[in-house]
């Protein structure tokens, strides 16, 4: 091969005297998909921000096509052909696809008139080039997350980007949508565009990456060619330990016969209809399906956060109908929502504030809150869930300063503090690193072994297969199958979730 299109050599960066990156190397060939792998906090984001011109490195060299360069800012990075697709989507929802693609560099005619038609035509071309079938005049707010992500990619390419960084692009996509993403990546490769692909999902990486670079705690660990390594090796590179300690555990005690929750013919069109299932004491009942299958909405209804139009819910044999979350919480249900930042946490407040938020009843004495008892409880759950932050005093740290995994633990802790008998977990491990993931898996198992019943909504198939006693599969709001533990295989679930058959 010729000179690499991008070389980052011995990149160092420190914040407040602490090294975030201590000598990272990365080289990217033309038309290569290069996976960047590392736990949360390993320094991936910092490296990407350096490449994107948001941070300046303390030392090290960046070469583009063999020429040493300095990247002075976001615009400069774009000019040098570097496009970044961030994990969180940064489009303006009210504007159209074309307006978003041309945002900040609109095509102007005379008298500062915006050439709307011209922009639409060009946008259409760009979209077709990558095989994205979305009209440029659609408003972004009406698109799915996956489609929005594709618009982000198109936007990056439209800057004549030669290098595109995708930061966990698949984290909120369904299996089907990930497939579409891969097709786009393949097209980009054909156009000799190089891609840095950040993801936690091993299978994806093995599917599309040419090479894989692993970093850990800000250090460069190594680069492997796809086909010359395996999952075990990569994980031990990532975590610095042998894989054995990290294998996903299986619950030891099986569910009891006692039915704690029964849902009969529950409907809330257009989200879901005619859903029935039973949840046993100590059971982990999974809900699989594609994104948008109506699983989250179903859980919201059970929790009283969304009205349902038809059907019945029985809690310990008695019919219940919760009109708000308060009633559900009092009845012993907890709900770890899908989006911890939007619906789980008060990000601007402290860990301890968030941990006690749903269980303040318990510390009420007269009109006062018993702060000491509250602090004890907060301390208990901080320890129990191993919540950590860079600051010494975790409890008074602002929640937004914690890593994703630790934020997720706060949300779980908040609900455990209410002492629920049923815990609903909606995508509890999305976007968190493998270490935190395993901690949460162990916790879920322990809780179920202790008699808590769990409804687990997850799009991560290996996760749902490892953890669940049984799995309900939803497709477009309808339950297409219930799989017993011995039937739990990815192919089975996918057949019910996406396939034409139904049970």
């Amino acid at each position, binding site marked *: 091969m010729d000179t690499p299109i991008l070389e980052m050599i011995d990149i160092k960066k420190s914040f407040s005297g602490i090294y975030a990156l201590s000598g990272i190397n990365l080289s990217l060939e033309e038309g290569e998909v290069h996976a960047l792998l590392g736990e949360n906090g390993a320094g991936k984001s910092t490296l990407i921000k350096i490449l994107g011109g948001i941070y300046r490195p303390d030392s090290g060299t960046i070469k583009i096509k063999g020429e040493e360069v300095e990247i002075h800012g976001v615009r400069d990075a774009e000019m040098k052909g570097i496009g970044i697709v961030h994990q969180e989507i940064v489009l303006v929802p009210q504007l159209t696809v074309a307006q978003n693609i041309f945002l900040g560099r609109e095509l102007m005619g005379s008298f500062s008139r915006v050439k709307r038609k011209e922009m639409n035509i060009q946008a259409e071309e760009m979209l077709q080039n990558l095989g994205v079938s979305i009209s440029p005049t659609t408003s972004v707010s009406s698109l799915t997350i996956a489609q929005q992500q594709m618009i982000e990619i198109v936007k990056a390419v439209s800057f004549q980007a030669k290098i595109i960084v995708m930061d966990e692009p698949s984290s909120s996509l369904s299996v089907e949508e990930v497939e579409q993403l891969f097709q786009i990546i393949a097209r980009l490769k054909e156009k000799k565009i190089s891609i840095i692909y950040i993801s936690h999902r091993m299978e994806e990486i093995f599917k599309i990456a040419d090479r894989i670079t692993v970093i850990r705690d800000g250090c460069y660990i190594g680069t492997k060619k796809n086909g010359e390594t395996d999952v075990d090796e990569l994980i031990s590179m990532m975590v610095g330990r042998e894989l054995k300690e990290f294998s996903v555990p299986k619950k030891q005690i099986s569910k009891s016969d006692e039915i704690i929750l029964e849902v009969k013919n529950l409907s809330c069109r257009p989200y879901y209809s005619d859903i029935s299932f039973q949840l046993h004491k100590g059971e982990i009942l999974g809900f699989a399906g594609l994104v948008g299958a109506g699983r989250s909405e179903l859980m919201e209804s059970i929790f009283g*956060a969304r009205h349902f139009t038809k059907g019945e819910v029985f809690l310990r044999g008695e019919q219940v109908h919760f009109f*708000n979350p308060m009633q559900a919480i009092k009845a012993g249900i907890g709900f770890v*929502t899908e989006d911890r930042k*939007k619906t789980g*946490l008060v990000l601007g*407040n402290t860990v301890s504030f968030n941990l*006690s938020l749903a269980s303040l009843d318990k510390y009420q004495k007269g009109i006062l809150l018993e702060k000491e008892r509250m602090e004890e409880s907060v301390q208990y759950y901080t320890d129990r869930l191993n919540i950590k932050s860079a600051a010494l005093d975790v409890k008074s740290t602002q929640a937004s300063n914690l890593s994703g995994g630790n934020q997720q633990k706060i949300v779980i802790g908040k609900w455990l503090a209410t002492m629920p008998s049923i815990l609903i977990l909606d995508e509890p491990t999305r976007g968190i690193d493998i270490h935190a993931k395993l901690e949460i898996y162990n916790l879920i198992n322990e809780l179920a072994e202790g008699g808590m019943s769990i409804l687990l909504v997850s799009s991560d198939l290996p996760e749902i297969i490892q953890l669940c006693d049984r799995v309900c599969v939803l497709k477009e709001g309808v339950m297409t199958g219930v799989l017993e533990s011995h039937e739990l295989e990815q192919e089975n679930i996918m057949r019910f979730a996406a396939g034409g058959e139904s049970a």
Partner: protein
Amino acid sequence: MRNRIEKSKVPHIISDNIGIMVVLLILCIIVSLATDKFLTSGNIISVLRQISINTYIALGMTLIIILGHIDLTVGAVVAMCGTLTVGFIVNQGLPVELAIIGGVLLGVLFGFINGVIVSTFKVPSFIITMAMMNVANGIAYVYSGGQSTRITDGFFISIGTGYLFSLIPLPVLYMILLIIVISFLLVKTRFGVYVYAIGGNREAARLSGIPIRKIEIIVFTLSGLLSAFAGLVLASRMYSGQPSVGSGYEMDAIAACVLGGTSMAGGKGSISGTVLGAMVIGIISNGLNLIGVSSYWQLIVKGIIIATAVILDSQKEKFKRNAIIRK
């Protein structure tokens, strides 16, 4: 045990309000250098009395803003309650106590209506409270025909002009009591935690089982109550009910909150900050008066000082971060 060491020895009330405290200190130094009338016990008491009305309103406003809302009705409620209470006594001949209860209930009603509309229809509080501001103003003018009404009733007058131990003006005493009560509510009770949670993340609060509607109605009602009380004390101090007072009071209250570090985005703020903010505003007016700056010029100077203080305060986070790095 590590975290014990980490706990700073500086009380929260100082470390959280360091920006506004510096501003207050500089202001005091400048004014006392400019005039020796400033640092006299008489003047200090007078400043405290001057800020008391604004502080009552700003206390309610702090809760409103932490909740993520705004209440523009407060100034008009001050005028309405003052005018009508005085009118009830002078024109209708109601017993003073009854008139006071009536006037205050009217303010409470306005707050309650604001709260119900905002929480039920999810309309922006800015618009609704602005509309209600017009209604309250209108009521004051319609009732009084735009005229101010003099009152000479001894008990009524003593509410705003009396002294405790012939030393502390009663309005200052009320202010201190209200600060204690509202701080207590915000810091020590579940209600307070809920206010912060709703302002910080409404959806997370809802899903945590927090009765958002109830809290919103309570807070708006409380704001109405405090404004009505402010109107009462003001009318008493002026020996009259005047429908034209109170305009712009909402802005002074909001300024006090913002100066004190309350975030307009909701979820953050403190009573101590607001009280300091009210003091800054009070000392600006007092100082400029003492120096002899005309009231028109005062507006300009006050505006500039408030803007500067807020900018300085917004840089606080940066200072903090730099301080950590230097360590």
